[in-house]
């Protein structure tokens, strides 16, 4: 009973957090919004001080060495948005399964678009108590375009994935999401 209340409270917290992130992302990308107007309006890919948005679809391509932990797995995928169309490569550095219903992990996300590339180190909090599972991501760009800038975003688990996922070790499961990158 108390465990259910705890789960419900967590659900409300995560939902509120996702809503906040989505709301701030929407404001940043909405045509004519305050944030857009404040920075080089019309610049297609943003300036170093504007918020840049990238999208990704990723899937897992290597089996975990110590399941259910996903530490060490390699992820592939595709990216779009401000970096241009390109490829995604990621790896899970470590994870924590001790919080029932949630998966916490540190990961490297590499975005290699035809315009720009960067690698971000992200803290992932995936909520597996909702269907489909969703995650919030926070971190920083550690290499490349927009180095040192803050990153936040979300992803949603897709089953089946709406696109081909070659090498996927989870069948048709993929993760689709977006990141916002902004100066500290």
């Amino acid at each position: 009973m108390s465990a259910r209340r705890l789960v419900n409270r967590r659900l409300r917290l995560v939902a509120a957090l996702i809503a906040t992130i989505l709301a701030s992302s929407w404001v940043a990308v909405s045509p004519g919004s305050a944030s857009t107007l404040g920075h080089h309006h019309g610049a297609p890919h943003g300036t170093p001080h504007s918020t840049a948005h990238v999208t990704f679809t990723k899937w897992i391509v290597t089996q975990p060495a110590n399941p259910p932990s996903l530490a060490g797995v390699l992820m592939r995928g595709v990216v779009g948005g401000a970096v241009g169309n390109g490829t995604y490569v990621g790896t899970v550095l470590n994870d924590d399964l001790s919080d029932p219903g949630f998966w916490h992990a540190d990961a490297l996300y590499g975005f290699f678009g035809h315009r720009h590339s960067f690698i971000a180190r992200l803290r992932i909090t995936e909520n597996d108590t909702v269907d489909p599972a969703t995650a919030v991501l926070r971190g920083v760009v550690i290499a490349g375009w927009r180095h040192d800038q803050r990153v936040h975003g979300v992803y949603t688990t897709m089953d089946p994935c709406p696109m081909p996922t070659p090498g996927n070790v989870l069948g048709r499961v993929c993760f689709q999401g977006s990141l916002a990158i902004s100066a500290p």
Partner: protein
Amino acid sequence: MNETPGPRSGELHVAKECSEYTGLAGSFCTITSSNLDAIPVGSKVVYASAAGETGIESDITIVTAQAEHVSGHVVLSMETNTGSVTLSGGTGAFAALQAETVVSFDGTEWHWDGTYSLTPAAAETTS
């Protein structure tokens, strides 16, 4: 030992995919096409250093399925996805290889385009 089919110098065009390059030292890309028999498709390009602030500056080693290797160095801006790669000798068929290329990215594969030479003199000075 250095019997390599094809021309001894000329243009070099190599493409590689980097679906296993994570930015960490030791991660790698895989050659997907090459006009030089000495760098066969399937060879791995292994990065000695992690990606840095603005991009990648790292020694690289190309390793073939026959365990031969060539040494090189890459400087790549991740701001623009442009840069250069130099190759400078190695083992086996690579001993005499020298190359200078520029790097570009088409959103799927990375390309090295430039010139190379495979001369006995170069082999003597680099092996």
